[in-house]
């Protein structure tokens, strides 16, 4: 900053308001600087030590305790969550075993029912098979009888056609014996 030109020239300032040598070494000003420095430092010290530093220390301590509280709370919540997870896993396992038990039971029941149905069906089938066999045998017997009769008649006709006297009784006996084979 330029010294105002109306300033009285002293041993540190020339007639044009410029410094002579280093202003830092001008003894005339030192008492002034020291006095105001002491005043300033005392004011700063009082402001800092009485108000500012305790206030900031308090704010920092508050923040630290808040963080600690939140950390404890979160720890608590975490343990609660873990407990809930354990309960959930337990319930899930219970449900699984119950489900598999029910599944086995219903499987066994169904097997039993299936077996009963199979047995019933088998019985019905065997009855039907018996009936069928009987009717087949009947049909076969009827067929055999019809064949025998046709054979006897045919034999009689052949014998007659050959010009011999057809003895019904003999021919019948001969055919029957042949059919029995």
């Amino acid at each position, binding site marked *: *900053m*330029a*010294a*105002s030109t*109306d*300033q*009285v020239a*002293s041993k*540190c*300032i020339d007639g*044009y*308001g*410029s*410094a002579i*040598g*280093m*202003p*830092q*070494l*001008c003894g*005339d*000003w*030192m*008492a*002034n*600087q*020291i*006095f*105001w*420095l*002491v*005043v*300033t*430092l005392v*004011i*700063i*010290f009082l*402001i*800092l*030590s009485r*108000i*500012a*530093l305790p*206030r*900031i*220390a*308090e*704010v*920092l301590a*508050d*923040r630290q305790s*808040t963080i600690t509280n939140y950390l404890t709370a979160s720890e608590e919540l975490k343990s609660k969550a873990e407990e809930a997870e354990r309960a959930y896993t337990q319930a899930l396992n219970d449900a699984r075993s119950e489900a598999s038990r029910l599944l086995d039971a219903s499987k066994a029941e169904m097997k039993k029912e299936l077996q009963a149905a199979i047995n019933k069906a088998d019985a019905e089938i065997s009855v039907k098979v018996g009936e069928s066999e009987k009717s087949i045998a009947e049909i076969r017997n009827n067929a055999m009888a019809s064949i025998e009769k046709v054979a006897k008649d045919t034999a009689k006709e052949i014998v007659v056609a050959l010009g011999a006297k057809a003895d019904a009784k003999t021919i019948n006996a001969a055919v029957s014996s042949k059919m029995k084979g």
Partner: protein
Amino acid sequence: MAAAAQPSEKSDGLVFHPMDQFIVQPLFGSGPIHWYTVTNVTLWMGLSVVALVLVMLVGTSKRALVPGRAQSIGELAYGFVHKMVEDVAGRDAVPYFPYIMTLFMFIVLSNFLGLLPMSFTTTSHIAVTAVMAIAVFLAVTVLGFVKNGVGFFSLFWISSAPLALRPALALIEIISYFVRPVSHSIRLAGNMMAGHAVIKVFAAFAGVALISPLSVVAITAMYALETLVSFIQAYVFAILTCVYLKDALHPHH
């Protein structure tokens, strides 16, 4: 910053008055400067108090749990210095934390205020830094004797060195101990003064049209460097105070 352009009796082109920015002058009227005169020293020291109130009091007045910008700066400064005191000087030095905080805040705020154009840099004066350095020196010496009694002399008697070397080392230690306030104060004042004077010299060169672009670039670069230096010198002053405090509390090597 108009000092360099001021007319002078030898005004033939470039005029350098890089030291005019450090002149102490009365704020009101003119006349001799007594110890109580309100000067530009008063103004800029007062502004550092205003800045301190803004940062440390107004900024933190809300006591917000989640700090805003201003409160963050206050808390950052607090944490920075507090950690420095704890780490460098030890846990038992924490009671002296407000004193170191006072020095650090005054120096850092004065340095930054001094970077404003047309401002007066109070910390560029050896009278200012020497008072602080001597205060630290005296306080630390008295504290050392109060805490340790005669045991404080063991700071100079290095028991880990060979016995034959100890007297010589003691002499060196004593000299270095008494040189402390000198280096402590000149380091800060010298750094601040040199940087500001260099900026002013570059500013004078800006009067020549051909050189002025280079001059502006140089001023910008110096300004950036000075911003760094402003903080670093405040830090160095505070950390050296912590080191001296540690020696006073624990003189045994």
